Structures are given as C-alpha cells and as structure tokens.
C-alpha cells in the first residue's frame, strides 16, 4: 500500500499542473499581503469607521493573524479549483491515457489502488492548505508582525494574540475537512469519467451552482441548506466566535465527514466495477 501511495505521489508531483496550485497559492498570498501592506489601513478604516468616531484605537490591527484570517476566506472560492486540477485527474487521467489498464493488471486489489489515489489526493490537499496557512502566517509576520485579531462578524470581536494559535489550528482543521469534501467529490467524478476535463469542470460547476443556490435561493432552499456541503465551507469561522458553539462545529464536521465517506464510497464501488476494456 505504501509503495502504491509513493508511486501515486510521484505521479502527482511530476505533473506540472500540480505546481500551478502551489504557485497560485503563493501568488495569492504575496499579492494579498502586499495590497494589505499598502492599503490595509484604508480597508480596516472603512470597516471600523463607525468605531473611529467614538474610540481611539491603539495597537497593531493589521498583522499576520488578520492577513491569515482574511486569506482563509479564499477557501470558499479559490482553493477548490486548485484542488480539482490535480485530484480530478487522479483516476480519469489514467483512464484517458490508458495506463489504468496496466495498473489494474498488477497484483494489487482495486480497493488498494483506489485508496492509494485517495490518500495521495488527501496529501496534496493538505500540502496546499499547509502552504496557504504557513506561508500566509510567516510572510504576514515579516511584513506586519503579530498582534490581536479583530474579527468583524455579527459585530466585532477582538481576540488576544495568546488566544489565537489554537483557534487557527482548529479553523484550519475544519477548513481542511471542507476541502477534503472537494477532494473526494472530484475523485468520485474522476472514477466515473474517461477524461480529465469532466471531473475538473464538473466539480467546480457543482460547487459554483451550490454556492449560487445558497446565496440567491436562500429563502427557497433554507430548510435544506444545513445539509448542503458548500454551506459548511466557511464554517471554520465558528472557531472565531467569542463563545464557541460546539454543537454547530460538531454538526459541520459530521455533515462534511458524511459527504467525504459518501463520495469516496460511491467512487470505490464504481472503480471496483469499472470496465477497463472498453
């Protein structure tokens, strides 16, 4: 199994498209933090304008924590696309090139082959998120330093620097689960498809459609929205509530874990019965 995973990782990291994701993340972080460096005060001032008439503010409001927090919002839009580029191709790429036939003739069970691809996809997703988080934090530290985090969400909450590391850790964990839903969805579609375009575009299309429905059809679809996985993509923000709603956090984790298991199971069933001769 380990050998299979190594081989899958080798395949992933020898493809140029893998580095598009990493490059894009690095570019997004640099571009965002540079714009924050020059225009951060104006943006923050726009948001906190109401308070500035009443309060005198002291302390470093633009810091690595704020930069990382705002960048995490990118999970909702940018990161799923970058994940699909690699994980959407993970099975269908081999189907279209025909190498899947060679693979499945080897003395490995189809389940093992499938899970080695899933684990490699998960490792890629984790790496992408780790680079986003760590690079944002480190670059933010060098550009702005650390400081308390001002979160604008149903009012204003100010978190002490000492109270942030664990929140970021768990927020990344919840965010990672959201992105693993994307990974598993694209792998599932990849198991069905015979070319790479379908899973990549299909996954992105599903996410966009569900996001649009969430926003535009809020009134109509409100009862089912808690069970739609895209609704949970920004639930990592729950970790930045002053009083944590453990029930909501647990619900988010359960709903998303359910989708991960569902997508991977459907993918596995299809992959095990996949006709590779036609």
């Amino acid at each position, binding site marked *: 199994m380990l050998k299979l995973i190594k081989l899958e990782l080798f395949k992933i990291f020898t493809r140029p498209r893998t580095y598009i994701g990493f490059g894009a993340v690095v570019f997004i972080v640099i571009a965002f933090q540079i714009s924050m460096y020059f225009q951060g005060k104006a943006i923050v001032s726009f*948001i906190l304008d*109401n*308070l500035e*008439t*009443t*309060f*005198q*503010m*002291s*302390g*470093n*409001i633009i810091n690595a924590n704020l930069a990382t927090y705002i960048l995490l*919002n990118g999970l*909702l839009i940018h990161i799923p696309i970058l994940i699909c580029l690699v994980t959407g191709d993970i099975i269908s790429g081999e189907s279209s090139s025909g190498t899947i036939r060679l693979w499945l003739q080897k003395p490995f069970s189809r389940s093992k082959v499938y899970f080695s691809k899933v684990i490699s996809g998960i490792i890629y997703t984790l790496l992408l998120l780790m680079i986003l988080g760590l690079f944002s934090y480190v670059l933010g530290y060098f550009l702005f330093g650390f*400081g*308390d985090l*001002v979160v*604008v*969400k*149903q*009012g*204003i*909450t*100010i978190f*002490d*620097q000492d109270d942030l590391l664990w929140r970021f850790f768990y927020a990344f964990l919840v965010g990672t689960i959201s992105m693993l839903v994307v990974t598993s969805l694209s792998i599932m579609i990849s198991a069905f498809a015979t070319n790479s375009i379908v899973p990549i575009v299909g996954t992105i299309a599903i996410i966009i459609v569900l*996001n649009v429905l*969430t*926003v535009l059809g*809020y*009134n109509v679809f409100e009862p089912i*929205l808690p069970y739609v996985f895209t609704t949970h993509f*920004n639930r990592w*923000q729950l970790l930045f509530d*002053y009083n944590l709603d453990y029930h909501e956090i647990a619900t988010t984790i359960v709903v998303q874990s359910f989708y991960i298991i569902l997508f991977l199971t459907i993918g596995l069933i299809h992959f095990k019965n996949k006709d590779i001769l036609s």
Partner: protein
Amino acid sequence: MRNSLNIFLILILTNILHSQNITKEELLTNSIKKLRTIPNYTCDVELHVDVDFIKIGERKGKLIFIKPDSIKYEIEGFALLPKEDPLSKIKNLSIKDYAIIELDPETINNELCRNLKIIPNYENNDIILGQLWIDKKSNIRKLSIFTKEQGKFEFLIEYMNYKYPVPKMITVNFDIKDMKIPPGMTGELNKFYKKEKNQKTTLGRIYINYSNYVFK
C-alpha cells in the same frame, strides 16, 4: 468633648456654607484651576469596554500624562480607548466663552454636588452643551458633554485621595450606532437575504480603573 464637637460642626457648616456661597463661575474656575495643578504622572490603567456588538477582553497598560494635556496609553495588544479625556476637555475650558446656568443640586456617588450647565457663546465651539456636577471640594464628579464631532458623552469620575484631583475610576457612557457590515466582507454571504434591521443606537460604556500613580 462638647466644645470639640461644636468646633467640628462649625467647621463643617462653614465649609458647606463657603462652598454654597461661592458663585457658579468661581466654582467652575476653582475646578479648572485644581485640574491644572496636576503634574506630570504615570499610572496603571485597566480598561473594560462594554458595548453590545463589541467583544473584547480587559486591557491593562500604562498611562503617561504630560502637562498640559498630553495623554499617552501604552497598552499591550489592540485596545479601544475613549476618544475624549474629560478632565483635559474641562481643563482647557475658557469660562468667558460659556454662559453658565446653575440647576438644583444632585447627589452623585453619595456626594452632594452643585449642578452647572454650560452653553457656548459662540457657534464654532466644539462643545455644544455641557453639564457638570461639582462637589464641595471642587472636584467634577459627573460630566455630560455634547460635542460636534463625537456626539454625547457622559463621564462619572471617582477620585483618589491624593493632593491632586486624579481619577480612581472613570465610567464613560456614550451612544453608539450598531455596526452595519457588508456580508461579503464577513464571509456570511447568505446574510444578504435575511431581513436587515434598522441601524439602532445602543448605549456603550468604558470603565477605566487607575492605580499606582507616580507623580514627577
């Protein structure tokens, strides 16, 4: 024993009569003069902000006062501080620029205080209306001011038992408008389609405790 009690009562009565006898202008002048005697100092401060839609823990730090009215806070982390310093505002008041009206005395923090209203004589004054409650020691116990730029502020002041009228605790009451933030900025996209309530005004409070004064 009886004699000393009589002397004590006479002294208190004299003091009360004296404080009642001085004119409202003299009373305000005395308060201002007293505030101007405060030398440079540093002290420890603890701030607690109590506003409905702001959640922030207590902040601790140092306050550095340099005559005549420079106040600098050295506070760890991000802090919301009162924009107005009540005592500096009064210290810089020029009595001739205001009409003073005396109202009925009121008790503030168990201290009977004379109640003065000040109305500016000129339109370009930053203070639109002010009200001061001054005790018999000429200390301002309560201050309510309407300013052009910052709206209404009310300060309740408790003093240290020092030679100078430096505060032990100040409670700042103010009106603040509820925040209206575009949901796109908070990531709560579905909030667009929830009914938005009118931007209401709520009462905010800042409690500031002062301690460990070091006069220079």
